[in-house]
């Protein structure tokens, strides 16, 4: 869908837990040669949520930053809130309800939680765009937040991380204009978690070609085809990062360069934050992008589906950013290392 009316992102915020565990610590505990898995996955460390953090608290902190960055956003006019996660703390009771109270939003709000694995955050974003475009909301808040679960000893343990990103969507004072968006979804069982099960199951190598690569390729080709743009017309491309290898491979396959994909590869330093991942990567890109630059983003959610967005930055992004602090890389830099036993202790004590 090509966007014919003004809509876009007005402000954004992130939360990255301050604790990190290095992959070398995990490799040691799994009796793997140090550096072997890290090199294969192109991930060096991952974030670890603190004892009193969860999807809701991280979502709050990311939304708090988004609101602080644009005090002109009237909270009473945030009329939609969608929270995407695969680790909502409640099976029944929405994460969004806690956030309405915590952020002191108006109770006159359309709100729900979404789950679609790692694309639940971007699906929330797409829904928020539609609320604003339709006139049902002046502002809408889209949040992706996750504390990813992985069984001790499983390969997912190397990358399952935690983080959150929030985007305030509106049709005025836009810092990132939405040019087009589409989605693609099929019933592809690459990764799932049944109720009452603590950890997900995955189908190993099947999660690659028929799942991740197929869906991202299909969705991205669709948006490029509709807009008539070529990879060389794009300044930044962001693909979902379950690790550091997959996005590089799909970028190359689709005709993008390393330079276009590199700014979004924060997975190397924070791991895979699941529903927050591509939104965090977009935030990292927005922290450095200049005006009038095009950004292509395609997320991927297991089960499976992909959301694609084509954006263009505005002059207002650069102007507003000059007054901000605590960018994504600042938060990454301030991370404190924990040992593997410290990391396990944090999980056990929750």
């Amino acid at each position, binding site marked *: 869908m090509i966007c014919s009316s003004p809509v876009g992102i007005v402000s954004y915020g992130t939360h990255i837990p301050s*604790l990190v565990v290095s992959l070398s610590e995990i490799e040691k505990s799994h009796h793997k040669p140090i550096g072997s898995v890290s090199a294969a996955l192109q991930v060096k460390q991952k974030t670890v949520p*603190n*004892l*009193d*953090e*969860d999807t*809701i*608290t991280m979502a*709050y*902190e990311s939304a*708090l930053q988004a*609101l*602080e960055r644009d005090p002109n956003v009237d909270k009473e006019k945030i009329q939609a809130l969608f929270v995407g996660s695969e680790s909502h*703390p*409640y099976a029944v009771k929405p994460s969004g309800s*806690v956030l309405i*109270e*915590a*952020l*002191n939003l108006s109770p006159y709000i359309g709100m729900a939680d979404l789950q679609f694995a790692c694309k639940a955050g971007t699906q929330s974003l797409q829904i928020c765009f539609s609320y604003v475009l339709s006139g049902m909301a002046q502002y809408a808040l889209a949040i992706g937040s996750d504390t990813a679960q992985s069984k001790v000893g499983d390969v997912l343990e190397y990358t399952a991380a935690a983080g959150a990103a929030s985007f305030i969507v509106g049709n005025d004072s836009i810092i990132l204009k939405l040019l087009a968006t589409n989605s693609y979804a099929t019933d592809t069982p690459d990764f799932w978690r049944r109720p009452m099960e603590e950890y997900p199951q995955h189908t190993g190598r099947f999660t690659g070609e028929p799942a991740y690569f197929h869906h991202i390729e299909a969705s991205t080709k669709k948006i490029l085809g509709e807009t008539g743009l070529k990879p060389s017309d794009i300044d930044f491309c962001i693909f979902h990062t379950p690790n550091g290898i997959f996005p590089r491979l799909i970028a190359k396959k689709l005709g993008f360069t390393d330079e276009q994909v590199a700014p979004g590869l924060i997975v190397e330093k924070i791991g895979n934050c699941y529903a927050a991942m591509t939104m965090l990567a977009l935030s990292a890109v927005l922290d450095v992008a200049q005006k009038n630059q095009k950004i292509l983003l395609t997320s991927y959610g297991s089960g499976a589906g992909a959301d694609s967005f084509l954006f263009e930055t505005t002059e207002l992004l650069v102007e507003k950013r000059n007054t901000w*602090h*605590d*960018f994504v890389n*600042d938060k990454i830099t301030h991370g404190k290392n924990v040992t593997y036993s410290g990391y396990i202790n944090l999980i056990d*004590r*929750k």
Partner: protein
Amino acid sequence: MNAINYWRQNKKWNLCLGKIGTVFSCTKIYASGSEQNNIIPYFFCIVDFADGGRFELMACANEEINIGDHVQCVLRKIGTGDKKNIIAYGPKIKKYENSQGIFPRQSNPER
């Protein structure tokens, strides 16, 4: 925490959530009640907020707090309950020191 008491309390979150303040006094608790057993040791602080309010709040898990620290009030889990209970969320403080070294304006003087 009783679910209905949680509901009464969440109406008061906006009194301090998001606000920035200065630590007036703090203590590191090593022996707690059962609701906070999983996060000991933790800091408990008296905080003066920039808008003049004074509150007594727990610090976020694993935060090291000193008197005079600039802090921000954020939402965190404030107690553990069993897996059937409502999750007790509430205000806690964490250090606020933005990357450009910009501190909030001073809170009220010591009383």
